[in-house]
Protein backbone atom coordinates (compact mmCIF):
# COMPACT_ATOMS: atom_id res chain seq x y z
CA UNK A 1 0.00 0.00 0.00
CA UNK A 2 1.30 3.46 -0.85
CA UNK A 3 0.29 6.31 1.37
CA UNK A 4 0.15 9.62 -0.58
CA UNK A 5 2.54 11.69 1.55
CA UNK A 6 5.04 8.92 2.11
CA UNK A 7 8.74 9.15 1.40
CA UNK A 8 11.68 10.81 3.07
CA UNK A 9 10.79 13.70 5.32
CA UNK A 10 11.27 17.18 3.96
CA UNK A 11 13.92 19.35 5.56
CA UNK A 12 12.97 20.56 9.05
CA UNK A 13 9.71 18.63 8.81
CA UNK A 14 8.72 15.37 10.46
CA UNK A 15 7.05 12.65 8.45
CA UNK A 16 3.53 11.89 9.64
CA UNK A 17 2.95 8.89 7.44
CA UNK A 18 5.24 6.21 6.12
CA UNK A 19 5.36 3.95 3.14
CA UNK A 20 4.17 0.49 3.85
CA UNK A 21 4.89 -2.56 1.81
CA UNK A 22 1.81 -4.47 2.71
CA UNK A 23 -1.67 -4.16 4.17
CA UNK A 24 -2.06 -3.52 7.90
CA UNK A 25 -2.32 -6.78 9.74
CA UNK A 26 -5.97 -7.19 10.68
CA UNK A 27 -5.29 -8.23 14.27
CA UNK A 28 -3.23 -5.15 15.04
CA UNK A 29 -6.07 -2.78 15.95
CA UNK A 30 -7.69 -5.50 18.03
CA UNK A 31 -4.70 -5.96 20.28
CA UNK A 32 -5.14 -4.50 23.76
CA UNK A 33 -3.03 -1.42 24.32
CA UNK A 34 -2.41 -2.28 27.95
CA UNK A 35 -2.72 -5.37 30.11
CA UNK A 36 -6.00 -5.70 32.06
CA UNK A 37 -4.17 -5.40 35.39
CA UNK A 38 -2.61 -2.16 34.24
CA UNK A 39 -5.97 -0.31 33.99
CA UNK A 40 -5.98 3.31 35.06
CA UNK A 41 -6.57 3.79 38.76
CA UNK A 42 -9.84 5.67 38.23
CA UNK A 43 -11.29 2.91 36.09
CA UNK A 44 -10.34 0.27 38.64
CA UNK A 45 -11.90 2.40 41.37
CA UNK A 46 -15.10 2.82 39.35
CA UNK A 47 -15.30 -0.94 38.79
CA UNK A 48 -14.79 -1.58 42.49
CA UNK A 49 -17.47 1.00 43.32
CA UNK A 50 -19.93 -0.61 40.91
CA UNK A 51 -19.25 -4.03 42.47
CA UNK A 52 -19.65 -2.51 45.92
CA UNK A 53 -22.97 -0.93 44.96
CA UNK A 54 -24.19 -4.32 43.77
CA UNK A 55 -23.24 -5.75 47.18
CA UNK A 56 -25.05 -2.94 48.98
CA UNK A 57 -28.17 -3.67 46.90
CA UNK A 58 -27.83 -7.37 47.74
CA UNK A 59 -27.54 -6.67 51.47
CA UNK A 60 -30.63 -4.42 51.41
CA UNK A 61 -32.65 -6.90 49.38
CA UNK A 62 -31.60 -9.89 51.51
CA UNK A 63 -32.53 -8.04 54.69
CA UNK A 64 -35.93 -6.99 53.33
CA UNK A 65 -36.82 -10.38 51.86
CA UNK A 66 -35.65 -12.41 54.88
CA UNK A 67 -37.54 -10.27 57.36
CA UNK A 68 -40.59 -10.23 55.07
CA UNK A 69 -40.57 -14.05 54.87
CA UNK A 70 -40.26 -14.30 58.65
CA UNK A 71 -43.22 -11.94 59.15
CA UNK A 72 -45.30 -13.89 56.58
CA UNK A 73 -44.47 -17.18 58.37
CA UNK A 74 -45.49 -15.66 61.69
CA UNK A 75 -48.81 -14.57 60.16
CA UNK A 76 -49.34 -18.07 58.74
CA UNK A 77 -48.64 -19.60 62.15
CA UNK A 78 -51.43 -17.48 63.63
CA UNK A 79 -53.89 -19.63 61.67
CA UNK A 80 -52.79 -22.72 63.60
CA UNK A 81 -54.52 -23.68 66.85
CA UNK A 82 -53.00 -21.64 69.65
CA UNK A 83 -50.70 -23.45 72.04
CA UNK A 84 -47.57 -22.50 73.92
CA UNK A 85 -45.03 -23.65 71.30
CA UNK A 86 -46.84 -21.84 68.43
CA UNK A 87 -47.02 -18.69 70.50
CA UNK A 88 -43.28 -18.88 71.26
CA UNK A 89 -42.46 -19.53 67.57
CA UNK A 90 -44.53 -16.50 66.45
CA UNK A 91 -42.87 -14.28 69.03
CA UNK A 92 -39.37 -15.45 68.08
CA UNK A 93 -40.01 -15.06 64.36
CA UNK A 94 -41.33 -11.51 64.78
CA UNK A 95 -38.48 -10.43 67.04
CA UNK A 96 -35.98 -11.93 64.60
CA UNK A 97 -37.64 -10.24 61.62
CA UNK A 98 -37.75 -6.85 63.35
CA UNK A 99 -34.09 -7.14 64.39
CA UNK A 100 -33.11 -8.12 60.85
CA UNK A 101 -34.95 -5.13 59.45
CA UNK A 102 -33.35 -2.71 61.92
CA UNK A 103 -29.82 -4.01 61.34
CA UNK A 104 -30.06 -3.87 57.52
CA UNK A 105 -29.81 -0.05 56.99
CA UNK A 106 -26.98 0.19 59.50
CA UNK A 107 -25.14 -2.64 57.69
CA UNK A 108 -25.71 -0.72 54.43
CA UNK A 109 -24.23 2.40 56.00
CA UNK A 110 -21.18 0.47 57.23
CA UNK A 111 -20.73 -1.13 53.80
CA UNK A 112 -20.97 2.21 52.00
CA UNK A 113 -18.37 3.70 54.35
CA UNK A 114 -16.03 0.73 53.91
CA UNK A 115 -16.47 0.76 50.14
CA UNK A 116 -15.67 4.47 49.80
CA UNK A 117 -12.79 4.08 52.26
CA UNK A 118 -11.30 1.30 50.12
CA UNK A 119 -11.48 3.68 47.16
CA UNK A 120 -9.39 6.14 49.15
CA UNK A 121 -12.32 8.47 49.87
CA UNK A 122 -11.56 8.61 53.57
CA UNK A 123 -13.77 11.63 54.16
CA UNK A 124 -16.89 9.57 53.41
CA UNK A 125 -15.61 6.60 55.42
CA UNK A 126 -15.16 8.96 58.38
CA UNK A 127 -18.66 10.41 57.82
CA UNK A 128 -20.18 6.90 57.81
CA UNK A 129 -18.32 6.03 61.02
CA UNK A 130 -19.52 9.33 62.52
CA UNK A 131 -23.15 8.61 61.59
CA UNK A 132 -22.99 5.12 63.13
CA UNK A 133 -21.37 6.52 66.28
CA UNK A 134 -23.99 9.27 66.61
CA UNK A 135 -26.82 6.79 66.04
CA UNK A 136 -25.42 4.53 68.76
CA UNK A 137 -25.23 7.56 71.05
CA UNK A 138 -28.78 8.62 70.16
CA UNK A 139 -30.24 5.15 70.72
CA UNK A 140 -28.29 4.75 73.95
CA UNK A 141 -29.53 8.09 75.22
CA UNK A 142 -33.11 7.31 74.16
CA UNK A 143 -33.47 10.08 71.56
CA UNK A 144 -35.52 9.54 68.43
CA UNK A 145 -33.29 10.41 65.50
Amino acid at each position, binding site marked *: MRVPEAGPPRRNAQATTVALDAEFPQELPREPITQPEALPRERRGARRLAAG*ERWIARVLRTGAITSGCMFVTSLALEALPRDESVHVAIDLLRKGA*ASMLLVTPVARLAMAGTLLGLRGEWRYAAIAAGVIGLLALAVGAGFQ*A
Partner: protein
Amino acid sequence: MTVLLLMAAGVLAGGLGALLGIGGGIVLVPVLVLGFGIPLEQAVPASLMCVVANSCAAAASYVENKLSDLRLGLTLELATVMGAIFGGLVAAFVAEAMVAVVFGLFTLFVSLQMLLMRRPVQEPATAANYVPGNYPLGISGSFVAGGLSALLGVGGGPLKVPLMTYGMRVPFKVASATSNLMVGVTGAASVAAYAWRGQLNLGLVAPLVVGVLAGASVGSKLMLKTPTAVLKKLFAAVLLIVAGQMLWKGGEGLWPSVWK
Protein backbone atom coordinates in the same frame (compact mmCIF):
# COMPACT_ATOMS: atom_id res chain seq x y z
CA MET B 1 -60.06 -9.28 57.63
CA THR B 2 -58.21 -6.65 59.70
CA VAL B 3 -54.90 -8.27 58.77
CA LEU B 4 -55.75 -7.97 55.07
CA LEU B 5 -56.80 -4.34 55.47
CA LEU B 6 -53.56 -3.56 57.32
CA MET B 7 -51.64 -5.21 54.49
CA ALA B 8 -53.52 -3.08 51.95
CA ALA B 9 -52.67 0.07 53.93
CA GLY B 10 -49.05 -1.09 53.93
CA VAL B 11 -49.09 -1.60 50.15
CA LEU B 12 -50.42 1.94 49.64
CA ALA B 13 -47.89 3.50 52.02
CA GLY B 14 -45.02 1.42 50.63
CA GLY B 15 -45.85 2.25 47.03
CA LEU B 16 -46.18 5.97 47.67
CA GLY B 17 -43.14 6.08 49.93
CA ALA B 18 -40.94 4.31 47.38
CA LEU B 19 -42.17 6.51 44.53
CA LEU B 20 -41.56 9.80 46.33
CA GLY B 21 -38.79 9.05 48.83
CA ILE B 22 -40.87 10.05 51.84
CA GLY B 23 -40.88 6.75 53.71
CA GLY B 24 -44.64 6.38 53.91
CA GLY B 25 -45.20 7.29 57.56
CA ILE B 26 -47.15 10.39 56.54
CA VAL B 27 -49.78 8.15 54.95
CA LEU B 28 -49.68 5.39 57.51
CA VAL B 29 -50.03 7.27 60.80
CA PRO B 30 -53.38 8.97 59.92
CA VAL B 31 -54.69 5.73 58.38
CA LEU B 32 -53.81 3.71 61.48
CA VAL B 33 -55.14 6.28 63.95
CA LEU B 34 -58.27 7.40 62.10
CA GLY B 35 -59.06 4.27 60.08
CA PHE B 36 -58.17 1.50 62.54
CA GLY B 37 -58.51 3.32 65.87
CA ILE B 38 -54.97 2.43 66.91
CA PRO B 39 -53.50 4.71 69.61
CA LEU B 40 -50.88 7.18 68.39
CA GLU B 41 -48.23 5.72 70.74
CA GLN B 42 -48.48 2.42 68.84
CA ALA B 43 -49.08 3.88 65.39
CA VAL B 44 -45.92 6.02 65.32
CA PRO B 45 -43.37 3.23 66.05
CA ALA B 46 -45.23 0.84 63.71
CA SER B 47 -45.14 3.41 60.90
CA LEU B 48 -41.43 4.06 61.56
CA MET B 49 -40.79 0.32 61.21
CA CYS B 50 -42.61 0.48 57.87
CA VAL B 51 -40.37 3.38 56.83
CA VAL B 52 -37.33 1.15 57.48
CA ALA B 53 -38.88 -1.73 55.51
CA ASN B 54 -39.76 0.62 52.68
CA SER B 55 -36.24 2.03 52.58
CA CYS B 56 -34.62 -1.43 52.46
CA ALA B 57 -36.88 -2.73 49.70
CA ALA B 58 -36.87 0.36 47.49
CA ALA B 59 -33.26 1.45 48.02
CA ALA B 60 -31.97 -1.94 46.84
CA SER B 61 -33.47 -1.27 43.43
CA TYR B 62 -32.33 2.37 43.35
CA VAL B 63 -28.72 1.57 44.30
CA GLU B 64 -28.64 -1.14 41.62
CA ASN B 65 -29.92 1.32 39.00
CA LYS B 66 -27.37 3.96 40.13
CA LEU B 67 -30.15 6.34 41.09
CA SER B 68 -29.06 6.82 44.72
CA ASP B 69 -26.13 9.12 45.43
CA LEU B 70 -24.19 7.36 48.21
CA ARG B 71 -21.82 10.27 48.90
CA LEU B 72 -24.56 12.87 49.08
CA GLY B 73 -26.65 10.53 51.23
CA LEU B 74 -23.82 10.00 53.72
CA THR B 75 -23.09 13.72 53.98
CA LEU B 76 -26.70 14.73 54.55
CA GLU B 77 -27.26 11.78 56.88
CA LEU B 78 -24.60 13.06 59.26
CA ALA B 79 -26.25 16.50 59.38
CA THR B 80 -29.68 14.91 59.89
CA VAL B 81 -28.57 12.77 62.82
CA MET B 82 -26.83 15.76 64.43
CA GLY B 83 -29.99 17.80 63.94
CA ALA B 84 -32.12 15.04 65.45
CA ILE B 85 -29.92 14.88 68.54
CA PHE B 86 -30.03 18.67 68.85
CA GLY B 87 -33.83 18.57 68.39
CA GLY B 88 -34.10 15.94 71.14
CA LEU B 89 -32.03 18.13 73.45
CA VAL B 90 -34.00 21.34 72.88
CA ALA B 91 -37.44 19.70 72.67
CA ALA B 92 -38.26 20.72 76.23
CA PHE B 93 -37.59 24.42 75.50
CA VAL B 94 -39.37 24.79 72.14
CA ALA B 95 -43.10 25.31 71.60
CA GLU B 96 -44.03 22.30 69.46
CA ALA B 97 -47.16 24.01 68.11
CA MET B 98 -45.19 26.96 66.81
CA VAL B 99 -42.65 24.69 65.08
CA ALA B 100 -45.52 22.73 63.52
CA VAL B 101 -47.10 25.93 62.15
CA VAL B 102 -43.79 27.16 60.69
CA PHE B 103 -43.12 23.76 59.11
CA GLY B 104 -46.70 23.59 57.84
CA LEU B 105 -46.40 27.01 56.17
CA PHE B 106 -43.06 26.03 54.64
CA THR B 107 -44.40 22.75 53.18
CA LEU B 108 -47.50 24.62 51.93
CA PHE B 109 -45.23 27.10 50.12
CA VAL B 110 -43.08 24.33 48.57
CA SER B 111 -46.10 22.28 47.47
CA LEU B 112 -47.81 25.29 45.87
CA GLN B 113 -44.58 26.22 44.11
CA MET B 114 -44.27 22.67 42.75
CA LEU B 115 -47.92 22.57 41.69
CA LEU B 116 -47.91 25.96 40.02
CA MET B 117 -44.50 25.83 38.32
CA ARG B 118 -45.18 25.65 34.59
CA ARG B 119 -41.74 25.48 33.01
CA PRO B 120 -40.36 21.91 33.26
CA VAL B 121 -36.61 21.65 33.87
CA GLN B 122 -34.58 19.14 31.84
CA GLU B 123 -32.96 16.76 34.29
CA PRO B 124 -30.32 14.01 33.93
CA ALA B 125 -31.70 10.54 34.62
CA THR B 126 -28.95 8.98 36.75
CA ALA B 127 -26.65 9.95 39.61
CA ALA B 128 -23.64 9.86 37.26
CA ASN B 129 -24.56 12.86 35.11
CA TYR B 130 -24.71 15.73 37.58
CA VAL B 131 -22.78 17.35 40.42
CA PRO B 132 -24.72 18.48 43.49
CA GLY B 133 -24.14 22.11 44.36
CA ASN B 134 -24.68 24.36 47.38
CA TYR B 135 -23.58 21.88 50.06
CA PRO B 136 -23.82 24.46 52.90
CA LEU B 137 -27.55 24.87 52.22
CA GLY B 138 -28.06 21.10 51.93
CA ILE B 139 -26.22 20.38 55.17
CA SER B 140 -27.95 23.13 57.15
CA GLY B 141 -31.34 22.10 55.70
CA SER B 142 -30.72 18.47 56.66
CA PHE B 143 -29.81 19.60 60.17
CA VAL B 144 -33.18 21.39 60.36
CA ALA B 145 -34.93 18.31 58.90
CA GLY B 146 -33.35 16.12 61.60
CA GLY B 147 -34.41 18.58 64.29
CA LEU B 148 -37.99 18.65 62.96
CA SER B 149 -38.09 14.86 62.86
CA ALA B 150 -37.22 14.80 66.57
CA LEU B 151 -39.58 17.65 67.48
CA LEU B 152 -42.63 16.77 65.38
CA GLY B 153 -42.24 13.07 64.61
CA VAL B 154 -42.22 13.62 60.83
CA GLY B 155 -39.66 11.91 58.64
CA GLY B 156 -37.07 14.04 56.88
CA GLY B 157 -38.23 13.06 53.36
CA PRO B 158 -40.82 15.81 52.74
CA LEU B 159 -38.16 18.41 53.56
CA LYS B 160 -35.06 16.74 52.11
CA VAL B 161 -36.41 15.94 48.65
CA PRO B 162 -37.31 19.60 47.82
CA LEU B 163 -34.11 20.73 49.53
CA MET B 164 -31.97 18.51 47.29
CA THR B 165 -34.02 19.24 44.16
CA TYR B 166 -34.33 23.02 44.43
CA GLY B 167 -31.52 23.89 46.82
CA MET B 168 -28.76 21.59 45.55
CA ARG B 169 -29.86 21.13 41.92
CA VAL B 170 -30.11 17.35 42.29
CA PRO B 171 -32.44 15.67 39.76
CA PHE B 172 -35.82 14.88 41.35
CA LYS B 173 -35.56 11.11 40.90
CA VAL B 174 -32.04 11.02 42.35
CA ALA B 175 -33.18 13.19 45.28
CA SER B 176 -36.11 10.88 45.90
CA ALA B 177 -33.95 7.72 45.71
CA THR B 178 -31.26 9.24 47.96
CA SER B 179 -33.89 10.34 50.48
CA ASN B 180 -35.26 6.79 50.45
CA LEU B 181 -31.81 5.50 51.30
CA MET B 182 -31.41 7.98 54.16
CA VAL B 183 -34.79 7.59 55.87
CA GLY B 184 -34.03 3.92 56.59
CA VAL B 185 -31.11 4.73 58.87
CA THR B 186 -32.85 7.49 60.83
CA GLY B 187 -36.03 5.39 61.02
CA ALA B 188 -34.09 2.39 62.37
CA ALA B 189 -32.57 4.52 65.14
CA SER B 190 -36.01 5.88 66.08
CA VAL B 191 -37.59 2.41 66.13
CA ALA B 192 -34.73 1.10 68.24
CA ALA B 193 -35.42 3.86 70.77
CA TYR B 194 -39.14 2.94 70.86
CA ALA B 195 -38.37 -0.79 71.08
CA TRP B 196 -35.97 -0.05 73.95
CA ARG B 197 -38.95 1.45 75.83
CA GLY B 198 -41.21 -1.51 74.92
CA GLN B 199 -43.56 0.56 72.68
CA LEU B 200 -43.24 -1.54 69.53
CA ASN B 201 -46.30 -3.73 68.85
CA LEU B 202 -45.00 -6.53 66.61
CA GLY B 203 -48.48 -7.96 66.09
CA LEU B 204 -49.42 -4.70 64.37
CA VAL B 205 -46.08 -4.38 62.57
CA ALA B 206 -46.16 -7.85 60.92
CA PRO B 207 -49.02 -7.34 58.39
CA LEU B 208 -48.00 -3.73 57.77
CA VAL B 209 -44.40 -4.64 56.91
CA VAL B 210 -45.51 -7.44 54.58
CA GLY B 211 -47.74 -4.96 52.72
CA VAL B 212 -45.08 -2.25 52.68
CA LEU B 213 -42.45 -4.61 51.23
CA ALA B 214 -44.81 -5.58 48.42
CA GLY B 215 -45.81 -1.95 47.80
CA ALA B 216 -42.22 -0.71 47.87
CA SER B 217 -41.00 -3.25 45.34
CA VAL B 218 -43.82 -2.22 42.97
CA GLY B 219 -43.27 1.49 43.69
CA SER B 220 -39.53 1.30 43.04
CA LYS B 221 -40.16 -0.27 39.63
CA LEU B 222 -42.87 2.29 38.82
CA MET B 223 -40.62 5.19 39.78
CA LEU B 224 -38.09 4.31 37.09
CA LYS B 225 -40.80 4.50 34.42
CA THR B 226 -42.91 7.40 35.71
CA PRO B 227 -42.15 10.83 34.20
CA THR B 228 -40.53 13.28 36.61
CA ALA B 229 -43.29 15.86 36.07
CA VAL B 230 -45.92 13.38 37.28
CA LEU B 231 -43.81 12.46 40.32
CA LYS B 232 -43.40 16.12 41.19
CA LYS B 233 -47.14 16.75 41.04
CA LEU B 234 -47.78 13.69 43.22
CA PHE B 235 -45.13 14.83 45.67
CA ALA B 236 -46.70 18.30 45.80
CA ALA B 237 -50.09 16.74 46.57
CA VAL B 238 -48.59 14.69 49.42
CA LEU B 239 -46.82 17.81 50.71
CA LEU B 240 -50.20 19.59 50.80
CA ILE B 241 -51.50 16.81 53.06
CA VAL B 242 -48.41 17.15 55.28
CA ALA B 243 -48.93 20.93 55.42
CA GLY B 244 -52.56 20.38 56.41
CA GLN B 245 -51.55 17.91 59.15
CA MET B 246 -48.88 20.27 60.51
CA LEU B 247 -51.13 23.35 60.45
CA TRP B 248 -53.87 21.37 62.17
CA LYS B 249 -51.41 20.09 64.77
CA GLY B 250 -49.99 23.58 65.33
CA GLY B 251 -53.42 25.18 65.32
CA GLU B 252 -54.67 22.82 68.01
CA GLY B 253 -51.84 23.97 70.24
CA LEU B 254 -51.86 27.65 69.32
CA TRP B 255 -55.52 28.67 69.02
CA PRO B 256 -56.42 28.27 72.73
CA SER B 257 -53.59 30.62 73.75
CA VAL B 258 -54.57 33.08 70.97
CA TRP B 259 -58.17 33.13 72.22
CA LYS B 260 -57.04 33.76 75.77
